[in-house]
């Protein structure tokens, strides 16, 4: 078992995949806490569909590095969704649904009409569920992913106290001179970056799992914002790493194995949380 793992680790593409996987899961879990607490989990889901649609266009255009197109369009989508959602809650929900299903449908349509390879359903499946694309990452993509992750982590750390205040009580934050709209925008842009990065790892349908599971699980266990944040980072990275190693060893799809690991972890945390509460 160990020998097999060591053998795989000798390949650079396996190492790249592990690095990217750990970074993406780290970034997504950082943002997850704020998103879940503010009832924004749906934004991640909507954005991932936008990213899928854009990915389809990038595939058709035969872009060598599709992040160049997907990243700006997803950020744009994030800004759009947020602007629409800030007017009235009902309308915001509807607009989000419109954007996400349209992107999904158009993406699939474009991939079919302008098919660039014989295996369309394979391509679509890869984009939706991640599949093997994580194992075909080039060095430049890994560098780009590392750079973006550093940006996300640095912004998060420097804005940590303000994000807390805005998340807990945006009226109070505004009354004391913060600018909640600005932070909302910042969060939307960061989540767009994370989703674009996560597309390669778990695909666009499953990326929301990376964002919400670690946060939800940690909230069962801890009662302070800092502890919840730190714990979701740890849980997320552990699950991503375990899921990837497992999928390499037994040959399961990477994305769904990671998400399955996250689900198991979430259920375990629910049980622990329930037992603790019952024990009191």
């Amino acid at each position, binding site marked *: 078992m160990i020998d097999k793992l060591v053998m795989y680790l000798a390949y650079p593409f396996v190492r790249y995949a592990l690095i990217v996987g750990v970074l993406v899961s780290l970034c997504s879990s950082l943002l997850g806490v704020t998103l879940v607490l503010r009832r924004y989990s749906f934004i991640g889901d909507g954005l991932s569909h936008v990213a899928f649609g854009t990915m389809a266009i990038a595939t058709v255009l035969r872009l060598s590095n599709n992040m160049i197109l997907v990243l700006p369009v997803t950020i744009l989508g994030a800004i759009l969704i947020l602007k629409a959602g800030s007017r009235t809650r009902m309308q915001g929900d509807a607009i989000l649904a419109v954007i996400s299903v349209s992107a999904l449908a158009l993406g699939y349509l474009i991939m079919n009409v302008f098919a660039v390879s014989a295996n369309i359903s394979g391509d679509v499946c890869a984009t939706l569920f991640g599949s093997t694309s994580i194992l075909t990452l080039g060095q430049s993509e890994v560098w780009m992913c590392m750079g973006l992750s550093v940006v996300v982590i640095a912004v998060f750390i420097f804005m940590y*106290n303000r994000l807390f205040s805005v998340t807990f009580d945006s009226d109070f934050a505004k*009354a004391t001179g913060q600018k909640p709209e600005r932070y909302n925008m910042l969060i939307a842009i960061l989540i767009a970056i994370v989703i674009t990065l996560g597309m390669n790892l778990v695909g666009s349908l499953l990326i929301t799992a990376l964002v919400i599971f670690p946060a939800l699980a940690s909230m069962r266990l801890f009662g302070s914002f800092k502890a919840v944040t730190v714990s979701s980072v740890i849980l997320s990275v552990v699950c991503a790493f375990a899921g990837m190693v497992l999928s390499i060893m037994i040959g399961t799809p990477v994305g769904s194995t990671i998400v399955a690991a996250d689900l198991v972890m979430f259920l375990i945390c629910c049980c622990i949380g329930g037992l603790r509460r019952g024990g009191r």
Partner: protein
Amino acid sequence: MTLISVRDLAIGYGQTPVASGISFDVEEGDFLCIVGENGSGKTTLMKTMLGLMEPLSGGITFPGGMKGSEIGYLGQQTQIQKDFPASVYEIVISGRLNKCAGRPFYGKEDKDAAARSMELTGITDLRNRCYRNLSGGQQQRVLLSRALCASSKLLLLDEPVSGLDPDATAEMYRIVKELNDSGVAVVMITHDVDASLKIARTVLCMGDVVRLMTVAEYLQQTGGQGK
């Protein structure tokens, strides 16, 4: 010193004013109670004073040179806060962000201020407890402590005792009175007129006509009853 001066203010959502012709000053150490029926614009007035809403007409100024961001605010609890995983200390110190312009982290001064305001509101021993596991009265004291952390001059309290049991209500009033006695100006929205008028000095009565009067005048007008 006049902390905040409201002149001929009209407030509301969109174009229709909820209330208009509102004028009053809040002096240093004042205690002003805002009373009125539901929908008379009490919370809207407070949100306009805080800059959360734009005034429809008229103006709010700070003649004493206090900044608009230096007001401590205790609002009505939101759905998000009810199950929020945050420790008492994290919430209280977040009141200090208005003094942290350009600084990403809290300094020693901020930590001292947080400790002081927890002391004044009697929640020092709850410091590391989780907010969502506290009783309603304790939660309100945490939010009061955060407001105090944001300002030692002026507190705006929006129904600080709503939903609290009699003991917690009495405790809350006691703390607010103590703070006011030590020189903090308080503006408080309340439904609990009888109890709050015992500690207030002036009353702003919202309604078709908005009137400012002393507690004695108010009691005389309402025939000694709360309402």
